[in-house]
């Protein structure tokens, strides 16, 4: 099947799925999952270099082509999407619009695949919009706040997209082609730095908006935080990666080191790339600090996505072989980790109907598998070996140290330490601690929901031990983009990842961990077990005061004494009065609203006599100007 046929038939099928789902949404969800499985096998079977024509638009050929990058990004995306599709087979019974969900998620899959396959800027734009549009229509299916979230998501995404479109046409007007590789070729020989930089930044802005990089990051909190729970996994695990892909296209497919070789800024990195790296570093700081503050577990991970988007951008932006591969590998790691975390949260919400950390606790006894999935995912997210998340962060650090970028490296380390803090908060608040009485009947989610989570966890663990299957296509990408040197970083015959200051042997590390684990387990069995004491429990009936009291007062609101209320209060106090970028953007939105108010008041509301005045004034001004 040709690539174009595949995408078009996926789009058509999505509409069919809607009508099937109208009859039985479960049948639709199962079909979706089967289609997803087929797509995965299709993606693995495709040969690199296959191209296919989509048609012509304005005399330009619209082309799809299958590269190492398409393969890698499509595979990662499908892994996330298919897991969520499987998850949704059960989860959808808690949702109001299952039929529309099934349709749009398939449509979005088609759009995303199209983006990764696009050989020219307009094809990319078309599928990009399809992906954005269909995902934007899923977001408002959540709770009340999600309606506003959809609007903010759409506008923020569009602001990046339209800058991209302007850049694409600017490139077309200058180089007479929309094909990405041809534009890259022309840009290398173009003498005008100003226009090149403009095209570069305009194209990159779509990626900045989509992958949640400062200053267009604010939609992540509200959209990922309020979207239907399982869909947040797709938003954060997959859709955000569309942005990373576009950033990678602008930085690497257009060889920025050669194009902007004449404006080096620091350590051989051009000013344009350094600008992006600075944005990435800012995102890490903001994402980390804001994530630490959140009481809403989904918003917490949404901010963590901002920070991780920053890692990816920094890694790719260095255009160092180590950094590039680390950044691209981080796409995979964050996709898997974020998907598992959001699915774990979706499972928790599915059973408890709340996403406030301070209202939860002790679920480890009730939902052990979900807990385990979450635990492994945060280990990967925080970049702790032996999970795969460590490897990508290690590679990015290697590149930063080698380039001597100490400030950025410091920020990256800071983000890593910060991530320990924020991923621990839901762990402690949701799964550990006291189980609130009202959740005493909560059960583990059914296998259809935990199987996709555990599958992703196992994949992440396996890749952490044996990362070479993922690193190989990444090295293929690096060769495609000609990022020197040509030597292989991932040396699978020696089980090594060769860095600048030493190498990393993931198998050895894993074995060490196993040994450590065994020792710890032996110690655990040797010492006496802790006793379970029910601190808040002994009250007889609902509403009656609890048998503990402080300062002579009965406690009627034990939530406030929950250790997870203001978990990091001491730390948060350090940046309590931080400036808020969200407020700045709100002011901008308000400006347009007020402008509308002003225009309305002056020109559209007045009486006929005022209209006559405006007509006369226009005539006078026009005559005055033209005479």
């Amino acid at each position, binding site marked *: 099947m040709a690539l174009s046929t595949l995408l078009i038939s996926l789009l058509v099928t999505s509409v069919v799925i809607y009508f099937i789902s109208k009859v039985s949404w479960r049948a639709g969800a199962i079909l979706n999952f089967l289609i997803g499985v087929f797509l995965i096998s299709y993606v693995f079977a495709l040969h690199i270099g296959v191209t296919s024509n989509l048609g012509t638009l304005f005399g330009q050929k619209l082309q799809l082509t299958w590269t190492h990058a398409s393969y890698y990004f499509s595979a990662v995306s499908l892994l996330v999407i298919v897991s969520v599709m499987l998850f949704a087979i059960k989860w959808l019974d808690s949702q109001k619009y299952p039929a529309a969900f099934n349709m749009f998620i398939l449509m979005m899959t088609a759009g995303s695949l199209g983006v990764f396959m696009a050989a020219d800027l307009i094809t990319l734009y078309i599928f990009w919009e399809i992906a954005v549009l269909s995902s934007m229509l899923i977001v408002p299916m959540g709770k009340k706040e*999600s309606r506003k979230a959809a609007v903010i998501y759409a506008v923020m995404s569009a602001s990046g997209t339209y800058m991209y479109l302007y850049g694409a046409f600017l490139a077309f007007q200058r180089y007479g082609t929309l094909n990405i590789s041809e534009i890259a070729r022309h840009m290398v020989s173009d003498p005008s730095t100003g226009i090149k930089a403009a095209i570069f930044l305009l194209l990159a802005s779509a990626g900045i908006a989509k992958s949640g990089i400062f200053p267009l990051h604010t939609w992540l909190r509200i959209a990922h935080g309020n979207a239907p729970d399982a869909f947040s996994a797709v938003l954060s695990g997959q859709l955000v990666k569309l942005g990373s892909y576009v950033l990678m296209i602008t930085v690497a497919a257009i060889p920025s080191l050669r194009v902007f070789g004449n404006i080096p800024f620091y350590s051989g990195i051009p000013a344009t790339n350094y600008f992006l790296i600075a944005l990435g570093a800012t995102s890490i700081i903001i994402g980390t600090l804001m994530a630490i503050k959140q009481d809403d577990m989904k918003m917490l991970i949404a901010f963590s996505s901002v920070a991780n988007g920053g890692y990816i951008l920094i890694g790719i932006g260095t255009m160092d072989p180590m950094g590039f591969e680390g950044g691209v590998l981080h796409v995979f790691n964050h996709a898997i980790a974020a998907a598992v975390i959001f699915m774990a949260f979706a499972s928790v919400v599915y059973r408890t109907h709340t996403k406030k950390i301070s209202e939860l606790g002790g679920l480890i006894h009730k939902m052990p598998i979900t807990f385990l999935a979450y635990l492994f995912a945060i280990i990967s997210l925080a970049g702790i070996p032996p999970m795969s998340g460590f490897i990508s962060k290690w590679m990015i650090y290697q590149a930063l140290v080698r380039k001597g970028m100490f400030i950025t490296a410091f920020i990256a380390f800071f983000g890593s330490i910060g991530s320990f803090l924020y991923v621990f908060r839901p762990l402690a608040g949701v799964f550990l601690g006291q189980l609130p009485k009202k959740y005493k009947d909560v059960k583990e989610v059914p296998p259809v929901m935990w199987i996709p989570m555990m599958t992703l966890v196992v994949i992440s663990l396996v890749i952490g031990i044996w990362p070479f299957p993922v690193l190989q296509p990444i090295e293929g990408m690096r060769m495609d983009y000609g990022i020197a040197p040509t030597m292989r970083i991932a040396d699978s015959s020696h089980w090594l990842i060769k860095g600048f200051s030493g190498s990393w042997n993931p198998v050895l590390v894993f074995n060490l961990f196993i040994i450590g684990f065994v020792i710890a387990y032996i110690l655990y069995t040797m010492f006496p077990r802790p006793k379970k004491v029910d601190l808040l429990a002994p009250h007889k009936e609902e509403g009656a005061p609890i048998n503990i009291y402080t300062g002579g007062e009965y406690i009627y609101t034990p939530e406030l004494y929950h250790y997870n209320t203001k978990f990091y209060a001491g730390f948060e106090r350090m940046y309590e009065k931080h400036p808020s970028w969200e407020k700045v953007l709100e002011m901008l939105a308000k400006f347009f*609203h007020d402008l509308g108010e002003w225009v*309305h008041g002056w020109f559209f509301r007045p009486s006929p006599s005022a209209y006559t005045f405006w007509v006369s004034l226009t005539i006078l001004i026009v005559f005055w100007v033209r005479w």
Partner: protein
Amino acid sequence: MISLLIAIPLLLAFVSVMWKRLAKPLFFLAAVTNMTVLLASWFPNSVEIHVMGSWKPPFGINLVFDNASFYAALVVNFFFFLVSLMPNLVESYGVSLMLLMAAANGFVLTGDLFNSFVFMEIMTITAVTVASRRENFYNAFKYLILGGIAGSIYLLATIFAYTATGSLNMAHVSMATISASSLVAITTLYAIGLGVEAKLFPLNGWVSGVYGGNDLAPVILGTSVSFAALYMVGRLFGTVFHGSGAGVLYTLALITIIIGEVAALRQQNLLKAFAYSSVAQAGVVVAMISKGTSRAMGLAYFHLTNDAVAKFVIFLVAGFLVYNYKNLNGVFKKHKVLGASFSMATFSLVGFPLFAGFQSKLRIIMELFSMKDYLFPAVMLLATLIEVGYVVRWNVKLWFEEETDEKADNPIVAGTLALILSLLLVAVFIKPEIFLGGAMKMGNALADTKDYIHGVLSVVKGGM
């Protein structure tokens, strides 16, 4: 045969004055006949004229039938035809609509400046009666005043043109050499005179009141009458005055785009919000016409056709909702077909891929870049950004907010029409030639003054 387009609705209008009950079927009859006449004379591909009272041009009044006026007449009559399919919308406005139809056709077909003024006046006055439906009197009155001013300025421009050239025939005027100062006066006055109907800032104060005041006015005024008015902008500034005064149009149009979108953003009334959006789209079209090349004009009318189809669906659905529900939250859960059509039409308006608007918007931006105009695309993309804001907001509100227990019957005819038209928008995305071919022919015909002059002044055929 072309004069039938004006004569039949006019005649039937007078007939129906006597038999009021027949007005609705007669309107339908007029619309069907006009469509038949047009379909029978598909794209003339040459300039045909039809002289009145055997006065050969440049004397007397003649109707010009070329690709441009054919395509404009086709679009105009198509929407009248659609309206005539919905008798409950027409109600007692059959007579007005027939007169409006005659006037719009006359306005499009005429080759005479003064004659076009007459038709414009009839058009405005009948449009005002349509606008006054549902006791929307104050807004209709505002429209009447502005239309009256516009008419007198249009007349003044015609007088100036006559003084400067000694002729009222468009072809003849376009041949004449006009002194620079007269040209400034004439084109400025025409720009203002047409600006009211073409919804240019700041002459568009009437739009929200009239389009937002009832359910019939936006459906017909926002589609057919807009198209006729914007056709005349192309005819006058493209064919007759060879792009003189285009700068004024361009500037006003760019301001119109931003102002329209900003005003739409704050609007809480569904009909009014999209009324402002149609202001903004008219701005895009006028700015594109002011570019003057045949491609630019063709793309402008392509965009306008897409916009008219989308707006017809939007206004049809919005009119139904606004007058059947007090609270619009989540109404589309009860009207899925209407909702799907509305969403598709609004997405086409924004220019999302899979819908017609994408084709025209992208082509326009591309054309502008190739003309090295960097400002207009930026304005257009900024406008689209604002558009995304309110389009998504309305869609989310109408689909996803908590619904109330109000209930209205599904309108079968309107729903079917809306669905067919919104699927047409998808078809145009896949195969833009459906509209693009005609629009490009129209652009060519408007830009080709020589052919127009030759056709009008040398060949005489037909007659009445």
